[in-house]
């Protein structure tokens, strides 16, 4: 299970620095080939491929049922592919348990937000921080030792993250009592607490007002500038995707229909027919 490629990020207590220099520049951050997933005979994703460099942003668009969420679930290890492989910094992910993936530096959010309702916003973020600072049983039970002192540090860092997301004032509220938009921000803060070098966002603007999604995209752009992590964002909110992602993949019925810049995608007749045309949202283009 041990791999050399990610070992350095564990030697120091907190891998705040981005993955730069960990792997040689010739190895891309993420390499996906021939990725295929079937659900009871129905193909959800077929022969998908992707190469993503450190710090790159990719948008994945497509109509409902195109396989977008399946792709996120595969990349984050929540489901296992029926074929193909996913290499993250050269390491094959397809055989790893789901809970081992975040430690490597891959974080995700969910289309239907999945926070921990009985925990406060701050605690939701703190849970994620324990990935790089695993609690030990003794300091937990008897309340002393290095593990105990770390709690304060975790709390402060989690607070700083909430502040970055603009929701520090909600830190002590139960996460179940927050508005939809604030819950989204907590979930993104929780993902960032893993200090990922790859962030997978599943419909981050779903259910938000246009102004709210605008603000969220601004925030994500700023976070990307500061942290330089790679982002794969799945969405069907066209204006948002077009603005945020310099590079797009279009999925349709589980196959990669087209790829290119927003400009190229907008003028691709295949895409217009499969996606924009059929969904009748001509205003988006």
């Amino acid at each position, binding site marked *: 299970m041990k791999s050399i490629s990610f070992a350095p990020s564990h030697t120091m207590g907190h891998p705040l620095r981005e993955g730069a220099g960990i792997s040689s520049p010739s190895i891309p951050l993420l390499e996906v080939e021939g990725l295929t997933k079937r659900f009871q005979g129905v193909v959800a994703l077929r022969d998908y491929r992707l190469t993503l460099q450190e710090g790159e942003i990719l948008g994945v668009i497509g109509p409902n049922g195109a396989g977008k969420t399946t792709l996120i679930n595969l990349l*984050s290890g*929540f489901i296992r592919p029926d074929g193909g492989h996913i290499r993250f910094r050269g390491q094959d992910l397809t055989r790893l*348990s*789901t*809970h*081992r*993936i*975040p*430690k490597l530096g891959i*974080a*995700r*959010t*969910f289309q239907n937000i*999945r*926070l*921990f*309702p*009985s*925990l*406060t916003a701050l*605690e*939701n973020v*703190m*849970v*994620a921080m*324990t*990935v790089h*600072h695993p*609690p030990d*049983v003794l*300091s*937990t*039970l*008897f*309340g002393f030792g290095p*593990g105990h002192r*770390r*709690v304060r540090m*975790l709390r402060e860092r989690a607070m700083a993250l909430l502040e970055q997301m603009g929701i520090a004032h909600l830190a*002590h509220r139960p996460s179940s009592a927050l508005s939809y938009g604030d819950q989204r921000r907590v979930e993104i803060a*929780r*993902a960032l*607490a*893993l200090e990922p070098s790859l962030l997978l966002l599943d419909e981050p603007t779903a259910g938000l007002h246009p102004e709210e999604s605008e603000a969220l995209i601004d925030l994500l752009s700023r976070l990307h500038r500061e942290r330089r992590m790679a982002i794969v964002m799945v969405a069907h909110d066209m204006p948002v995707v077009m603005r945020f992602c310099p590079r797009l993949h279009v999925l349709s019925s589980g196959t990669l229909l087209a790829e290119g810049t927003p400009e190229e995608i907008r003028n691709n007749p295949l895409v217009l027919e499969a996606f924009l045309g059929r969904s009748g949202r001509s205003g988006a283009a």
Partner: protein
Amino acid sequence: MIAPSVRREWIWALRGFLWLLLAGAYLALERGGNAYLQRLVILFLINLMLVVSLNLFTGFTGVFSLGHIGFMALGAYASAILTLPVNLKAVNLPDLPAPLASIALPFFPALILGGLAAAIVALLIGIPVLRLSGHFVAVATLGFLVITRVVLINAEAFTRGTRTFAGVPPFTTMGWAALWALLNVYVAWRLKHSPLGLRLLAARDDPWGAKSVGVSIGRMRLIAFGISAFFTGIAGGLWAHFLTAFSPNAFYFSKTFEIIVMMIVGGMGSVTGSILGTLLVMVSTEALRNLEPGFAVGSLTVGPLYGLSQIGLAVLLMLLMTFRRQGLLGDRELRLEAIAERLERWLERRKTAIEAPRVRKADP
């Protein structure tokens, strides 16, 4: 939530008051020498351990265990076999294997070994069983309870089978019970309010969300199961050295039911709720038990009502499920900080209430 407005002195004063109250009650009982009350308090402390431990697993992981009394039985028999005097072993357990037959350990190491035995068995069965999803864990742990009973009945060389295991030295004093109960409550509280506890609760709240931040659901459950079984085993050991004679029948459905009711009354996932639940259920069943031989109200005489306390327990559970499913506290805690805040606000209001009429009189 911790209210920052409350002055620390208030919390310290309350905390001091609480400890003084507990210490005073303890000393009064110890010196007063009312044997009935003392026995009741010891039983309360042991039940409290059973409830807090069960809650530490079931409440913190959201997975029901119906097999915890099996761990209690393991702790009871293991520690009792270890402390039984050598001459009694020769009479009661003639077939006991050599190293065990010739030793009689002091109370403390025997208790610890009993707890460890329970914890080790918990880890062994936990590895396959805890992978199952919620309801199936309940059924599987029920299976464990049944297996434990069958083993106890058939391992005659160690347990005397269905016959009474007697002659256990009466080591369990109020002091021992109080110390272990305190430690158990403390550990459960710490666990809930630590990063490890956050991970536990996260795994309970949303397994997918938990996996997405690197929490292994199986490992979280296993840790809670092991700690829980350890303290349940200790409670079993205390119970064995309190009653001094018992048989496998004591560790079965009725005890399981009793402990589960106490946990549910208090609230699943709440440590302070466990204390309240245990107290409430014990006080009410004890009151009903005293009515069982029959009683008179004025000219009306009521005959023997055996089983009244059991019925009372069942009715309590039904009422609770109808009107307050989450129990007294749900998974929240009674916090000194919150009580101190209330007290402070109440005093403030009194102060203004006293001053206000004076101001009004001065106005016109």
